[in-house]
């Protein structure tokens, strides 16, 4: 009995010190860098923007998955990370996701965010900027569907539909449509339709998380238009999509990065179907948030944060060399 009381007293003391200690801390302006742990198109694209690097060159705490990274940054006042636009903005309202704040990129490097660089407040403004080329590409990028050797059969018709009727669903899903001439160019890669093809059967798709919601939407509409066709979609990452497609395990692979030469050599044949982008994000509890939003960060400061490690403090990041 006495022992029990002793334990209780000790735990109470411990808990109160824990509560008390978190009160008085000086404001910490160091940067805590986050990146993606899973091999993904988003990290490759972001790394490409940062001086043509690769995902493995991005240093930082690596978190699994886009939602995981968003969550990690949202909960860390000193955090910096990057997300697909789909995960940085609230799907319903188009505003920034609670807890996250997109970092404006100071494109002309003049030390502040001008009116024409300020399009991050809601998704539609950003999407417009991407479509008009005002947001750099990378980190904006095309998303592709890949197959082995050539597109044929039902999957070819699905892709054809995506590039024609499917494009009207792109906006509502928060992605960026490709420019018209690009769409025409991709369509021409498909070859003529086969009039004897019966619209019956199964199309299997797998691959990148970034494309997953869009392809699910497309599949939903396609199956409405052609009830005899079923589309089976699984995610698992761009790499898995490539592996599956190149090995004929699925008909189409969803790829959220560019196709490597090695993969093309193994027979990868692709079309671009839609565009989206990766944006840098920080927590909305960041102590220097207003300063960050006013001046933005340049590409070089991002490189110094993620790749070289030279910048480890927010103050230094904002007052660029």
């Amino acid at each position, binding site marked *: 009995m006495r*022992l029990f009381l002793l*334990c209780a007293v000790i735990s109470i003391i411990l808990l109160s010190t824990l509560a008390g200690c978190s009160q008085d801390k000086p404001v910490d302006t160091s940067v805590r860098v986050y990146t993606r742990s899973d091999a993904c198109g988003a990290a490759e694209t972001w790394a490409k923007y940062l001086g043509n690097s690769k995902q493995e060159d991005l240093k930082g705490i690596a978190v699994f998955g886009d939602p995981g990274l968003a969550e990690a940054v949202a909960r860390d006042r000193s955090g910096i990370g990057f997300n697909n636009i789909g995960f940085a903005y609230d799907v319903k309202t188009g505003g920034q996701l609670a807890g996250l704040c997109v970092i404006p990129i100071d494109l002309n490097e003049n030390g502040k965010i001008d009116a024409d660089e300020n399009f991050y407040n809601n998704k539609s403004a950003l999407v417009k900027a991407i479509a008009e080329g005002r947001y750099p590409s990378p980190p904006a990028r095309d998303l592709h569907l890949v197959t082995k050797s050539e597109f044929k059969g039902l999957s070819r018709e699905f892709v054809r539909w995506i590039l024609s009727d499917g494009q009207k669903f792109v906006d509502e899903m928060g992605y960026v449509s490709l420019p018209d001439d690009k769409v025409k160019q991709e369509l021409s890669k498909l070859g003529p339709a086969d009039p004897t093809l019966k619209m019956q059967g199964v199309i*299997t798709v797998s691959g990148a998380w970034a494309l997953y*919601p869009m392809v699910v939407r497309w599949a939903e509409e396609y199956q409405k238009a052609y009830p005899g066709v079923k589309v089976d979609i*699984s995610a698992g990452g761009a790499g898995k999509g490539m592996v599956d497609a190149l090995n004929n*395990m699925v008909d189409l692979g969803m790829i959220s990065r560019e196709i490597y030469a090695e993969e093309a050599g193994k027979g990868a044949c692709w079309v671009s179907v839609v565009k989206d982008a990766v944006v840098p994000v920080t927590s909305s509890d960041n102590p220097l948030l207003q300063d960050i939003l006013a001046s933005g960060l340049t590409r070089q400061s991002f490189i110094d944060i993620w790749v070289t490690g030279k910048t480890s403090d927010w103050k230094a990041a904002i007052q660029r060399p």
Partner: protein
Amino acid sequence: MRRDRRRAEENAFRVLMITAAAMVAGSLLFVFAVVLIKGLPAISLEMITSTPKGGYYLGGGGGILNAIVGSLYLACGATLLALLLALPVALYLQKDYIGGSRLARAVRFSLDVVFGVPSIVYGVFGFIIMLYVGVRASLLGGILVLTLLELPIMIRAMDEVIRTVPPELKAASYAMGATRLETTLRVVLKQVMPGVVSAVILAFGRGIGDAASILFTAGYTDSLPKSLLDPVASLPLAVFFQLGTPFPEVQQRAYAAALILLVLVLALSIISRVVMARYNRYVIR
């Protein structure tokens, strides 16, 4: 003096034990509570009884009947297959057959090692073999890989329980002229039934909850599989995919899928324990 010391030790350990049990229970209940709290709002009758309608993974209508049925097919198939293989092996490891010999030690050792292989390696291997043979991801592939996954835990858990059978029990049976097989089937098996059931449930839980191995081998589909060679949906993958979307309601559905998974395991656990309660009277302590 001595008595005081003994009593103090007893009390100290009592406190420790209850604290430990409380911490274990607390952390496990926390996990359970998270699944319940986040998943319950998304559960509806529609979710359990219908397959995904268009756009289910984006928040649209429908349910995950495909994943529920798929998971049941996968896990039951794998558990049955594993049981068929595990029981003979676990029984063979008794002293009556090869227990205590080098072969038995080697077998136990190899099973413990296999148990330590991450499930994703099984998935990758399964994938490579399926590529080689030329089949696509399907129910059969998923069952085979899950069987491999469940086998070690089932055998080892059964083995541990079978080893506790008192040798006098078996000696009595032999003394009456029974063969090894008869002793094993009629005496030993009855004695260890509760433990065997525990092992089966443990393995079933492992099989039904694993995502990495079936990501490569079972595929995913929105419909119910009609044959062994059709791809099949599963609850862990439903959770995995839904968590990866940017829609909060869909992420909530992921928790609902996890909750359904839990309910399935719970149901199986309760059913088998009720059935086994009948056999408990055969167990000799």
